[in-house]
């Protein structure tokens, strides 16, 4: 399910870029290159409690044990969507794959790969699987991501890059009050 590396049969492009709209619609993938060593990027990401710093819609992640974490996402009018997530596959320094556990508000799964890119640092590729839009589940997913999921993922990865490369997340807010207002 998470084989972004595997190409479309006819070329070397990632399968998620296929123009065939019937196929893999529920998959999205986004890449960013971060000017830090892969070990450092991996270690930062592996500590799930840190993810809300750059993932805009995630309110909080509680680490339950080495493999499990509890995710809390803000919804409209003070509502919350929550689920537990489990790491189902992990290659130290290279990739993490997770899957939401049964009984949560939202079903999702994903994989993040960290590839050494020499002088350019590390290529981080996030692949996320979600239920196709439509129905109650689709609405929940849309809330979860607020925007089109692929745009949200791309922006979250840029924030991760900013945080790791510069130690902060760029904002044009002129002062803390305007910043707080924008963050909602």
């Amino acid at each position: 399910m998470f084989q972004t590396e595997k190409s479309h049969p006819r070329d070397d492009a990632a399968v998620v870029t296929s123009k065939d709209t019937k196929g893999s619609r529920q998959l999205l993938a986004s890449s960013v290159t971060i000017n830090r060593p892969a070990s450092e990027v991996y270690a930062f990401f592996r500590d799930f409690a840190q993810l809300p710093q750059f993932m805009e819609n995630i309110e909080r992640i509680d680490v339950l044990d080495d493999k499990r974490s509890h995710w809390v996402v803000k919804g409209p009018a003070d509502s919350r969507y929550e689920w537990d997530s489990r790491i189902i596959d992990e290659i130290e320094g290279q990739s993490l794959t997770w899957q939401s556990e049964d009984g949560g508000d939202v079903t999702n799964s994903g994989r993040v790969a960290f590839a050494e890119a020499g002088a350019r640092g590390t290529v981080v590729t996030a692949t996320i699987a979600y239920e196709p839009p439509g129905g109650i589940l689709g609405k929940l997913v849309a809330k979860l991501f607020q925007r089109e999921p692929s745009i949200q993922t791309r922006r979250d990865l840029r924030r991760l890059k900013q945080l790791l490369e510069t130690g902060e997340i760029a904002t044009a807010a002129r002062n803390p009050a305007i910043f707080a207002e924008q963050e909602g």
Partner: protein
Amino acid sequence: MRALTWHGKHDVRVETVDDPGIVNPRDAIIKVTSTAICGSDLHLYDHYIPTMQAGDILGHEFMGEVVEIGPKSTLKIGQRAVVPFTIACGSCYHCGKAQFSACDNGLPADNQDIAREAYGQPMSGLFGYSHMTGGYSGGQAEYVRVPFSDVGPIVIPEGIEDDKVLFLSDILPTGWMAAENCDIEPGDTVAVWGCGPVGLFAVQSAFLLGAERVIAIDHFPKRLELARRFGAETINFEESDTYEALMLMTGGIGPDAVIDAVGLEAHGLFVDNVVDQIKASTFLGTERTHAIRQAIIACRKGGRVSMPAVYGGFVDKFPLGALMEKGLTLRTGQTHVQKYLPALLAAVLEDKIDTTFLISHRLPLEDAAEGYKLFHDQQNEATKVVLKPGLSTAT
């Protein structure tokens, strides 16, 4: 605080707005002592640049005193500093290659999508220059929040007047990079279209980089006179045929390198320009590009085309054939200001480059709207307008 805000075409106002404050650890707050109006600001004033919002604070050429610092700023309170107009992080891949205007991290993540759509990749942030370049509040104000203050601003030694160093923020490095992009060789002739601030610094820089002759082209006698002061030969395009004059001045060869320091609002009653103007006013095309067309046609075979002038969108009738057939090299971009600051500050302090000659008007910040009108309507007399927040309106 008081600040110059944009409200629409030819509508800018000095208003009271919320003060800036430290948001990120690397920020500093600068109390502005001098801030200039740029030719690039005129593109906003004429509403050629999209993604402006009513109330945006303009200004990207400014300097002042450090009054507040975040925990990771390396500036000290009380220091005077000139701030580059490009907002760059100093730690990404592009900053590492001194391509500061291509910084990956200067733009807020959400603003990067506009440039990704328009240009393929987002560029650095810019102060006071539309939301496509970040939506940062600009420097035509009493105070400015400066991100990445540990890598951008350059500290100015005591006793050096503002007017001498202010232009390090943009137009001096821009003129310098324009000349550097010409790869000047001994004996070269460089032709410069536009004798605004950028063109005039390009003239000085071309000589410093070894050009034997510089030919400056404009239609404002006062601006041409300034170019002549630095040793340039001049062509007034309203009096003379630019192409024929250049051919006669260069023995039929054409200039070895050409610089477009005019940009997307070229003046003149040229057929292509009038067509562009009609298209721009009906939103069919976005740019008026007479100068770059003429520069490419005049350039010698195998020559270099340097384009500091700003373009934002698509152009018609770009002489791609001439560029290809003559084997020209085209180099351009927003200036990598941070790259040039130490060397250019030294050159200014050693009086190798004249900067203060340019300033025709010094106005209080309160009169900024009049400053825009002046710089826009009276380009012959108004070569550069510098706003001083400290100056009272009575003077």
